[in-house]
């Protein structure tokens, strides 16, 4: 089915002309055949795999976090040199080029502090290595969340996680940004916080848009 979804659709508008000049009538039988297959396949969807999320571990200030892998585009193990942007909130480190796109670099630690209401001054060291970052978003609106270190990918069923977000370590965070907590999963008995990176990403863009209006 997925293979079909990715293949060229016989009736899909073809502005590039890659399908040549084949008229629609000749494409129709193929489409109908595909449609039959799709209708037949829709009733036998296997949902079990989708219920096991994959998360990527990362560290900020010694604390362990996780983020859903499907919310990220890439894990950047070496963030390129970034350029600060004047008139910016502290947590906005700047931007850097990545292939053909511009990426907004956000210091996740300072962002979480800010969301908590603890805005503070900070000197970004332009000469030091930026470290590692999680790339989120779409081309043209890419955001890299800088973290101290990126770890391994973990796969765990949802049932093992507490969704109450009541751990004292994470009370300071807005609950909308905390997806799950793994109690006692840390080696020192502490929890691992699963952050909702998509939520953070959406809010970062909103905050920046508001900010941009004023500067």
């Amino acid at each position: 089915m997925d293979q079909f979804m990715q293949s060229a659709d016989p009736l899909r508008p073809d502005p590039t002309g890659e399908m040549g000049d084949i008229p629609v009538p000749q494409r129709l039988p193929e489409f109908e055949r595909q449609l039959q297959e799709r209708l037949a396949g829709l009733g036998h969807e296997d949902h079990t795999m989708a219920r096991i999320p994959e998360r990527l571990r990362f560290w900020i200030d010694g604390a362990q976090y996780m983020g859903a892998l499907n919310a990220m585009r890439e894990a950047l193990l070496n963030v390129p040199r970034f350029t600060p942007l004047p008139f910016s909130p502290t947590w906005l480190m700047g931007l850097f080029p990545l292939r053909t796109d511009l990426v907004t670099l956000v210091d996740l630690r300072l962002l979480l502090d800010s969301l908590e209401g603890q805005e503070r001054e900070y000197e970004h060291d332009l000469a030091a290595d930026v470290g590692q970052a999680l790339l989120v978003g779409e081309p043209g609106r890419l955001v890299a969340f800088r973290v101290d270190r990126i770890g391994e990918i973990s796969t765990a069923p949802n049932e093992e996680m507490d969704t109450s977000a009541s751990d004292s370590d994470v009370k300071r965070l807005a609950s909308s940004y905390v997806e799950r907590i793994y109690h006692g999963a840390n080696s020192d008995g502490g929890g691992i916080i699963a952050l909702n990176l998509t939520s953070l990403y959406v809010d970062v863009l909103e905050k920046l848009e508001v900010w941009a209006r004023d500067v």
Partner: protein
Amino acid sequence: MSESPSVLERFLDEVTLLISAIDQGVTDAEYAGDVVERRARYAETCRVSDALARLAEAFEAADIAALAQAVATATSRAAEVSDTSPIPIIGAHDATIYLRRRLADMRRAGAVAQGGQQAADAVGRLIEALSLAGSLSQPAAASDGEGYDQLSDLDPEERDLFLTFDSVELGARNADQDTAALRAARVAIGSEGEPTSGAPPSAVADDIDIIPLEMKRLFLAETETDLQELSQHIAAFVGGRGTQSSLPAMAGIAHKIKGSAATVGFPDFSRVAVFFERLVLALQSEGAVPRDRMSATLGRFIELFDACVVAAENLNSPDPAIVSEAQRLFELATSKDDGAMSADAVALMASARSRRSPRSSVALGIDPAASGMKVDAGRLEDLWIHVGALAINRGALANAHARVTQASHELESALERLQHKSALIVDGTTDPGRNRWGIGGSRGGAAPPGDAPRYTDSSPGIDLLRDAWQAADFEQVTDRDSALVALSEVVADLETHGAALSTALMKMAQLIETQEASIAHIQQDATRLRLAPLKDLAPRLEVLVNWLAPAVGKQVTFSIAGEMTEIDRRLLRGLTEPLNQLVRNAVVHGIESPEDRTAAGKPMTGSVWVRAYYVASDVVIEVGDDGRGVDEQALTGFSTGGEALESAVRENVRDLHRIFDHGVTSMRRAGALAGSGIGLSEVETRVREVKGEIEIAETSAQGTVFRIRAPMTLTAVQSVALEIGGQTFAAPLGAIMATFDHVDAQPRMPPSRPAETSEDARLLTEYVLNSPESPLRNSDTGGDDLASNDQEGIPAYSLAERLGISVPETPTAAIVVARGKNRIGLLVDRVGPISETMVRPLPPFLRRRLIRGVTIRAEDGAIALLLDVATIADQLLAGIVSAPPLAPAQPQRKVHAAPVLIVDDSITIRRAVDQALRQAGFTTALARDGIEALEFMGAELPRVIVLDLEMPRLGGIELLRAMRDEPRYTGVRVAVLTSEAGSTREQQARELGADAYLLKPCSQDKLVAVVRRLYANSEYS
């Protein structure tokens, strides 16, 4: 029916495709060239609709299934009709609009939800309309002009009612809950495959638009071309040229716009096209309105279309008054009352001024500026970006080549040292006096015994190897002998590899050069693809003059010169409205009535012209007339109510540029068509939006010339690099009058400004540039000599301070920006080279007023912000000089500007010291020996030198000696970093001027502490 998100997603995707296919099929059928093709298209659409019905049934979406089945039935009937005339299916396109809305609602709801009662009613009405298909033998519009083939023929309210359905049953919208976090949470939950709990909030149907943005973009791009073509046909028709062919062509274009606009979700746009099409059809029919009466009406329709385009760019419907006006124009033009026509048309035109929709400064990603070819501007943008990336990669490649070249040199240097040391060892073992083997001379001795290799080439390494073989006593080979031979072999191998590396580097350099030339050509081509000639605007301006002049009782001719002058399509589009307004003003205000012109000794027919030409990388467009000129007296004595101007008048300020102020007019009486003073203010705003400037170049009783100057393109710009607080910025060269490497800038506190107030803390320090001499370069912006009339000095401000960047000392370099008669200095740490750079806009959420975009530096692939120095200068001149907002949140950067020079022949040491010092915030420069250090210091003076002593060519002691003899190096502090321990050596270095003596290995902390101390004590000037 509850479906998992992935299944729902697929269902919705399928239905979206099918709806598009139906839409396309119906449109294809309507535009089919003959009856056979049309029937075939309807037959295909019937099968697609039937497929949709079956799919919807499978998902229990009853209304969609019913409607799709009705479309299938209607298209099936239409496919059987053999009439040669087009047979539109009433309601077919509207059915697809309904389906898209339903689809969008389901997408938002996250479930296949049923529509409400109103939805059922709407479906009922649509099915009823569709049932008429095949029962009509002729299209209503073509037969009597009363009916129309779409539901869009209904009044807007009726039509909305027809298509409205209630989505309340899908779940009440809770605005408070619909926060960003909730939205994100929904996404997150959905992505993990968890079932949705309850019905998520649903949006109002009218808020939803799932027609792909790409389709709208293509429509607007196509319509842009269509409207230009339409303008040409109107001009030809009104001018009596090609009447026979013009009207059908106009009708064809209108019909096309009508269908396309409705398809992509702009029904009111479509309605305007409907009235225009009807009007043209009426003109074609017997008893049409005379051509001269049509001039104003047709011209006005172009403006109405423009308004629709502007609205569509903002994803809006045009003002309802636009549609009403189109209808009224149609009715007036086809009415029998000749007298009413002219007066009503003028009244409509006058009222139009208040209805012009502002063009959004953020075009929501829709850029229809793709006339002349069917290429979407977005794709051109992509091409341009990718070409830019190629250029950046080329820069990175060149850098990599440079680094490899440097490594090759290091290798050569290391090899040389190795050769030297090896030769010493070999010589030591072969010296007759010290040779324990007792073998004779070191070179040219006896041939090696046994199977020793025979080298025929000669090089230091091979000679060494030969010596080693000769020296070895093969009767009594020891481990040391073996090691010696092996060492010599390594040296020889290194030589061979080094030579191969050099050859490869030469080849690589050639390839880079070739690639550089190719990329430059591609860049040029990509840039040219974005350009469009000014002549694209000519027909529109001509139509404007032709309809406007009679309406105000004047006789005016229009001409355009330099029409092949090219400008970026985006800029051309941005200048369309300003040029329209200037031409309009010229006709209404500038040109006198025939009587007045005769009295003034001028020809009765006035002249309005547009002229375009290049100045450097800018385009200049002049709009002129031979009218009465701007009434300066009226300008300074009359305002439509602006108190500021009255105040200015009291101060006897008579500046023609004030005509661009909001509410300022030269007209003694504001009329219906113009004179409110709003137009020119808007013109200046629009021109500034495309980074241009406008001025009155001439005005007299013989006429007026407005001059617009704008960059030819916003995507490629010549810029000069500026270093501020360790960060590299860029500034467009066009805005810069001159640059200076060194200036004398003294702080100045205006006497009117009381010091030590809290408010003062937010003000920028003002400096004075005292007649700087020897500018590095003057730009070709036409500025006069800088030093000739600046006896009082030029006011200047620190860009670092303006941008919120902390720097240790007052910057000593400057650029000077000219703004009209004013000039202002902007202080920086260093002015860099000029280069041609490609500009990319900042993402919308990062936009800053003072930053025009970003460029990618070829040398290191990093981003440089392109400063809008013109705006910065304007703000400073206007007194908007407050410190950056929210200063506490502004990251402060402590960067030492002047460099620390690291001189060491070991690349390892250079890198280690470089990294340590850069991390500590120092700017660094590197040299491999004393010669390179002196070369560097010839161009730039370091504050501190970290110096090795043992180096090839010129060692540390020799460098210190050379520096001691040169007074300009007196202030430079030197920290020796060497492995040569010994008081004699240290004493020698200190006597020659070394300030510190560090032994390798040295801890990073100690090194940084010493450099920091020396840096602070240096006598830097």
